[in-house]
């Protein structure tokens, strides 16, 4: 915004100014017929002026090609903005490799190529069970033939960009995307035990949310450069008109050209409109339940004195809510004192959701200038949605799940059901455990010992870091919700099996509930999951990283505790975290809701990367339950249990 938007600057182009004044003066003089200047020879002058205008028009018009129209880019408030689609970043990189500027494209190709190579090395390491470093060397050396296409560089061939841009504009795929896709498909084939997400069932194309930068703008005035080059069209028209006058008299074409000149002139003198708005927002339900539909009605009134020829408003839908019907956007013209009303419907999700300010974008009638403002609405400022975790119905208790994670058969001899050993009778041993057969045959008294069964101490940990707010389905239940559901059911079923269960979170918000048994603990865990800020509907802004929070959690854990972690495993740090706890003597079971889809190259790549993480964890002895979105949790637990007992 280097230029003042309110007044056009005349003196920045002194040459054009001088030429303009001279032209007008000469024109007036010639029109009035004053003989100040000698009569000009008609033909050469008309040819020179007309030719100059046509040439100049082409030059000025061509500037349009180098100018991009600038306009406000409000965030996509229709979808939940607090979750990421796994692999969306790779898709964005591939898109930049086609649509970016020259250097951006080169960088994007480099980034994409590196990520593919890293994944290839990780897959090779998993296949051959070798360290990643060695695998990486072999991939670089081109020795791994299973993923041969990784060796084809993602370089840009001359003219390819134009072809790709046209191709993507008509809904096709760019050549860089197809090449990356080939590599991803080869990696998927090479990865052992990887079935790949089913592209058909995912159904919803969610290749990343565009324009998600949300907190970017304060008040902004800008020139849109929308009329750039139109003066060129006007020059062209006038130039052709001047040529046409050679036939004699004023060509009617010159008259037509005035229309184009007038239009361009109108845009030049345009100024930014004053924006003075009153916005009221009304929400139809007071305390909705999750899944309810809430109608939001917004009334916008022009409280200023000036006519708003072109007003666009975008309501600040809370980041955790999704628009299910209608649009939170509206465009209209608004006289002073006039008001408009529009409404849309959102689907309620758990938690408190505050509305953001309304974004108002006003333009002058020609659209040459634009003013962007944020307006706080009166009326409803938030939606409170009652927590609902307690109402998920009876939690199915599965013997397998309980045995795996809860009841632990210890090596210690004592009370129990399973035979352990026999020892000499000591005074005070209960009569029921005396081995009467032995007394009958040998006369010696001996006592049977059994494997002692202790209740396990399990801490259910919910991964609620930024990276865990991921989903392949921007319309459906977000993964944080699935993690909480899993945590709730697991805790419940462990408690039913008589174990002591605690609750913790990988989150910048400290959350800790010491392990205990019984129904009171079940209620406590439920309340915690429903209301604790660590499990809020909005993605945390702070990272969860570094030693202090980990040390704090380790110090809180009882020495004999084991962990059941609910995590989507969509970043490598999650794997490091689990490995660390597992290596320090807290056996880890991870229940991982699968958030990866198969709709785009990036999503398929993310699915392979996650499969590599799972396989790495399994190799370290961590138990992994891969929980697919379509599958009920008990089925996933049962499948995992079968695998463990094999």
């Amino acid at each position, binding site marked *: 915004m280097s230029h*003042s938007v309110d007044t056009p600057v*005349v003196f*920045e*182009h002194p040459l054009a100014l001088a030429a*303009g004044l*001279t*032209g*007008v003066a000469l*024109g*007036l003089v010639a*029109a009035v017929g004053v003989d100040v200047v000698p009569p000009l020879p008609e033909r050469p*002058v*008309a040819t020179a*002026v*007309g030719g100059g*205008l046509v040439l100049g028009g082409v030059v000025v018009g061509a500037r349009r090609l180098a100018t991009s129209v600038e*306009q406000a880019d*409000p965030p996509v408030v229709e*979808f939940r903005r607090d979750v990421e689609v796994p692999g969306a970043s790779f898709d964005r990189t591939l898109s930049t490799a086609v649509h970016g500027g020259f250097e951006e494209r080169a960088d994007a190709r480099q980034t994409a190529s590196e990520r593919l190579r890293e994944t290839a090395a990780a897959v090779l390491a998993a296949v051959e069970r070798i360290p990643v470093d060695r695998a990486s060397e072999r991939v670089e050396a081109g020795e791994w033939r299973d993923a041969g296409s990784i060796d084809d560089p993602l370089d840009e061939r001359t003219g390819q960009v134009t072809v790709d841009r046209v191709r993507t*504009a008509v809904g096709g795929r760019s050549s860089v995307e197809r090449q990356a896709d080939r590599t991803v498909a080869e990696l998927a084939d090479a990865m052992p035990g990887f079935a790949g997400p089913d592209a058909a069932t995912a159904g919803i*194309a*969610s290749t990343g*949310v565009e324009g998600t930068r949300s907190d970017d703008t304060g008040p902004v005035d800008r020139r849109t450069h*929308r009329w750039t*080059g*139109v003066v060129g*069209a006007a*020059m*062209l*028209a*006038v130039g052709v*008109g*001047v040529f046409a*006058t050679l036939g*004699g*008299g*004023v*060509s*009617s*074409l*010159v*008259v*037509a050209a*005035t*229309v*184009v*000149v*007038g*239009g361009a002139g109108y845009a030049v003198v345009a100024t930014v409109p004053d924006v003075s708005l009153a916005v009221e927002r009304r929400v139809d339900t007071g305390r909705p339940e999750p899944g309810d539909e809430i109608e939001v009605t917004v009334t916008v009134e022009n409280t200023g004195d000036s006519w708003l*020829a*072109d007003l666009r408003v*975008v309501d600040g839908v809370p980041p955790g809510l999704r628009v299910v019907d209608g*649009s939170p956007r*509206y*465009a*209209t013209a608004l006289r002073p004192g006039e008001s408009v009303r*529009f409404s849309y419907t959102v689907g309620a999700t758990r938690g408190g959701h505050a509305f953001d300010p309304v974004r108002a974008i006003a333009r002058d*009638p*020609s*659209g040459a200038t634009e003013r962007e403002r944020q307006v706080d609405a009166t009326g409803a400022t938030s939606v409170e949605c009652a927590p609902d975790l307690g109402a998920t119905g009876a939690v199915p208790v599965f013997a397998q799940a309980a045995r795996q994670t809860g009841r632990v058969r210890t090596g210690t001899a004592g009370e129990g059901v399973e035979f352990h050993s026999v020892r000499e009778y000591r005074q005070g041993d209960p009569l029921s455990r005396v081995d009467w057969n032995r007394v009958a045959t040998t006369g010696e008294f001996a006592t049977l010992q059994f494997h002692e069964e202790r209740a396990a101490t399990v801490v259910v940990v919910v991964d609620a870091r930024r990276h865990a707010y991921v989903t392949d389905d921007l319309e459906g239940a977000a993964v944080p919700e699935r993690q909480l559901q899993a945590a709730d059911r697991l805790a419940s079923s462990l408690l039913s099996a008589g174990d002591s269960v605690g609750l913790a979170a990988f989150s910048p918000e400290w959350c800790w509930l010491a392990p205990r048994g019984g129904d009171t603990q079940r209620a406590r865990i439920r309340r915690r999951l429903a209301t604790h800020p660590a499990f809020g509907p909005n993605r945390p802004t702070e990272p969860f990283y570094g030693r202090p929070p980990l040390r704090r959690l380790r110090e809180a854990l009882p020495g004999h505790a084991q962990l059941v972690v609910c995590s989507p495993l969509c970043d490598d740090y999650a794997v490091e975290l689990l490995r660390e706890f597992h290596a320090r003597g807290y056996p880890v079971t991870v229940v991982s809701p699968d958030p990866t889809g198969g709709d785009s190259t990036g999503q398929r790549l993310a699915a392979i990367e996650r499969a590599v993480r799972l396989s790495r964890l399994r190799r370290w002895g961590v138990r992994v339950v891969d929980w697919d979105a379509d599958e009920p949790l008990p089925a996933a637990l049962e499948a995992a249990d079968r695998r463990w007992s094999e």
Partner: protein
Amino acid sequence: MTFLRQPQRSVAALTVVPAAATTLALAGNATGAALGLVGTVVLAVGVTVASRPGVSLGALVLLGGVLAAGTADVSPAALVLGAAGAVVSWTTGQHVVGLATQLGREAPVQRSVLAHLASATVTTLSVGLVGFLAYRVSAGSVPGVAVGFLLAGVVALLLALRS
């Protein structure tokens, strides 16, 4: 569901109305009418797929139609009408594309588009009417070169004023 940044068909159709008017105004000249028809189609496609260059190209072809008709002595009133149609369809097309990329397909934008269409029509036709009347009044009495100089000067001033 992705956020679709393309205009609704009914809104895109509004843009085609002034372009069609241009084509009709140029009906007296074969080349002009043909270019008008091609321009209208290009413009319609450009608006539908929300492409600013597409809209500009369509309007440029329309203007080419006006120029072609102008060199072939079509009546000045028809030319003014044709030029106005080209300008209005261009600016409305750009407006619709801007709305589509900014607000998406679902947002109700009819009021805004109609207001823009109306104000652009009134403005360009007013300018055209003034030019047309001046032409009628001065016909024959003013040398063509003088008017050429005047308009060239105004264009240069516009260039000086641009920011």
